[in-house]
């Protein structure tokens, strides 16, 4: 399979995992899309360094665009590239982030170090502990 095919498959797998298999439904929450917006910006920056400096090079047969040139940086934009990186990297990164967050939330839901939640201590509401035990 090409990188393009694998990247699309990777996204499909994590979407099914989140919405269907583990039912964490992160993809339907604004907390996910807000954090993803932040992550994807920094992905473009850091991945731009890795691909623009040609620390990682890609084979044109595996991606939408052409191979990373041997003696020059790849295009910043165009030819299947966004910020030097193949568009496939965005799908790869999405799959990586979603898989991680889905597992994290799923574990928390199953009671693996669910607490302490992030942020300052929450105010306990009267009766909350009793409800949780029911």
């Amino acid at each position, binding site marked *: 399979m090409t990188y393009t095919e694998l990247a699309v498959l990777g996204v499909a797998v994590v979407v099914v995992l989140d919405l269907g298999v583990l039912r964490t439904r992160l993809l339907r929450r*604004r907390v996910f899309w807000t954090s993803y917006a932040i992550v994807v910006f920094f992905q473009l920056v850091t991945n731009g360094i890795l691909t623009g400096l040609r*620390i990682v090079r890609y084979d044109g047969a595996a991606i939408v665009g052409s191979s990373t040139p041997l003696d020059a940086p790849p295009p910043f934009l165009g030819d299947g590239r966004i910020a030097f990186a193949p568009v496939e990297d965005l799908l790869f990164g999405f799959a990586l982030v979603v898989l991680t967050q889905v*597992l994290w939330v799923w*574990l928390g839901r199953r009671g693996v170090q669910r607490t302490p939640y992030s942020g300052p201590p929450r105010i306990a509401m009267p009766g909350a502990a009793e*409800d949780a035990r*029911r």
Partner: protein
Amino acid sequence: MSRFAYLAVLVLVLVGTGWLELLLRTRVYARRRRLALTLVPVVAVFCLWDLYAIAAGHWTFDVERTTGVVLPGGLPLDEVLFFVVVPVASLLTLEAVRSVKRWEVGDEAPGDCVGGVRVDADVSDGDAS
């Protein structure tokens, strides 16, 4: 450029997100067990993907700018660390957004308080007061 170019990018990510644990109390590093259990399958799956991609020639690495420590299958140590550092950074971001916005993430226990609103218990629980 040096053999530590790739590694330097990873350090940049660690430093760029590490402050969230301290200032926004994300408690990602603090929940070590949950973090480890999350990372093991992620690292495994993405190392397999990487090994396949290397074998199929999808991508190659500049030996001059990676540590030179290469695992069986041609997988640079730098890549393995990438699959630890980036997921940790993504969790810090998720928990940082929760910390600030108080939005539900989906792992809250019924009865716990999120942003001043109690998380709904099961539908059978009619006691809302």
